[in-house]
């Protein structure tokens, strides 16, 4: 595959991978300003791939305007007041129990081969080396039809063999993990990192290298992954951002270049 002449960052690559995977029938919750990647992915998907997708914010505005990402400050600026409707904690409870959000996004301190996510305790939970920020809503990992994992770093200490603590259940311990735990949804869809895209093998439910980003080698991925992912015979290159995607990112979604830092 020819290298694209367009310049882009790994964050923009992740945004495009997720955006292309979103669909009109999806319903997604996006968080606040810290969640730049899902926010940009949803913004891009609405413009290009899934205009009918339902979007709601943490503070429960239905189908809000999505103002551009900002470098810092004014969290308030991402707090739009133009929307289809305004909800409250009632909707949050219902939507997280019922899966009114059909799609969700999680990042993690640790992510393991079965897509389990740790946001709470690294080390022994009773005396942790790191106490993470926790997770506001782990329910969506159970109730949403699928979720995306995005990693801000592709390192051995992040992508681990087994998380120290499961904050959000991926496939738990294998193909039957979710079913045994009484979970009916399919769980993690893609795991996207600065280096590669993983999906999950249908039979083992273990992470499988789906593609490496342009300019990244399979070896580089292996060296930085704390477990042995399934490597298919042929690993493709992640289709890089298109000119159209980048133009929208640069002009409408991320004019400040938050994703280009």
């Amino acid at each position, binding site marked *: 595959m020819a290298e694209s002449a367009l310049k882009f960052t790994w964050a923009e690559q992740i945004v495009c991978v997720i955006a292309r995977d979103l669909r009109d029938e999806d319903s997604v919750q996006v968080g606040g300003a810290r969640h730049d990647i899902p926010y940009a992915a949803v913004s891009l998907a609405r*413009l290009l791939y899934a*205009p009918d997708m339902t979007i709601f914010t943490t503070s429960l505005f239905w189908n*809000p305007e999505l103002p551009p990402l900002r470098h810092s400050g004014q969290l308030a600026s991402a707090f739009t007041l133009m*929307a*289809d*409707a305004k909800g409250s904690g009632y909707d949050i409870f*219902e939507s997280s129990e019922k899966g009114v959000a059909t799609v969700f996004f999680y990042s993690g301190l640790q992510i393991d081969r079965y897509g389990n996510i740790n946001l709470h305790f690294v080390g022994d939970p009773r005396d942790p080396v790191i106490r993470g920020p926790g997770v506001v809503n782990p329910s969506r990992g159970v*109730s949403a039809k699928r979720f995306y994992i995005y990693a801000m770093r592709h390192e051995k200490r992040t992508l681990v063999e087994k998380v120290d603590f499961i904050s959000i259940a991926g496939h738990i311990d294998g193909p039957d993990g979710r079913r045994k735990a009484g979970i009916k949804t399919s769980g993690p869809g893609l795991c996207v990192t600065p280096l590669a895209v993983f999906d999950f093998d249908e039979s083992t439910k273990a992470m499988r290298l789906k593609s490496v980003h342009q300019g990244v080698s399979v070896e580089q991925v292996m060296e930085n992954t704390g477990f042995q992912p399934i490597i298919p015979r042929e690993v493709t290159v992640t289709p890089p951002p298109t000119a*159209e995607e980048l133009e929208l990112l640069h002009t409408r979604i991320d004019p400040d270049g938050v994703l280009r830092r």
Partner: protein
Amino acid sequence: MPVKSRTPKLATVDECLSLMHDGMTIATGGLGMFNKPCQWVREIAKRRIGNLILCSSPQASYDADLLIGAGLVKRTNIAQVSFDQLGLAPNFRYAAQRGLIDAVVQAEATLAGGYLAAAQGLPYHAVGTLKGNDIVKLMSFAKKYTSPLGGEELLAVPALSPDMAFIHAQEGDEFGNLRHLGAPAFDPIIARAAKVVIASVDRIISHQRLRMEPEKTTIPSRFITKIVHLPYGAHPTFSPRHYVEDEEHLRNYIQRARQSLGGHAPEAYKEYLEKYVYGPKDVFEYLELIGGVRRLTQLEGVW
């Protein structure tokens, strides 16, 4: 840069009712004498979609009575069916008393609890206030149990998720965002509980204008499957800030039902159905029959 645009949910009556079939569990919104989806009920009756399990907000009126009178209902899940101070609901009362329908005894809490459980994706909702009465003995759909935290006796009401719900609001946009100008009553819960939700509105309003005041939206489009513009769609019940109830029409309706059921004029109710339900080809023909612009102007009311 060409970007994609959102698909409107505006639809025709036929498109919506092609989703409905015999034997379904349906719910009607509104409450008592307002916001009843009356034009939907007439359209359903015209198509003779029958064998229905009819739920409603806890209080039904014309909606339930007409579907029962047209012979399309096998079971009701409603706390009370009545025409308020105009009297009891003749067809409901007659059919329930004679066992022609299975009129399940419900209370506001069991219906609301059932819808809430469905809205929350939970198998049941706890109800703690049906105690000491004989009603609960008739509620075979519910189950008594002890709180898992111990002590208190509760009633478990199973989730009630209608196959289709019909809701009438005053305003809505092309994407199905609704605005009730009066009380939304149980419509927000029913919309979240039902599998398919069909809305009608008296007036379609600008999406851009609606978005300026999201706090006025009573049901977001996420929960609406299709929206149809049906002016005066709640007639003869009332539509807050748009029109008052048509007392003359309602009295005529009730009288005809009573005459037929009492045997004094066996054809009286059938004539009502022929004229107002089976006859008109659409809502506009119906509105001409009830008196056209002159009558509708009289029903404007002072809000």
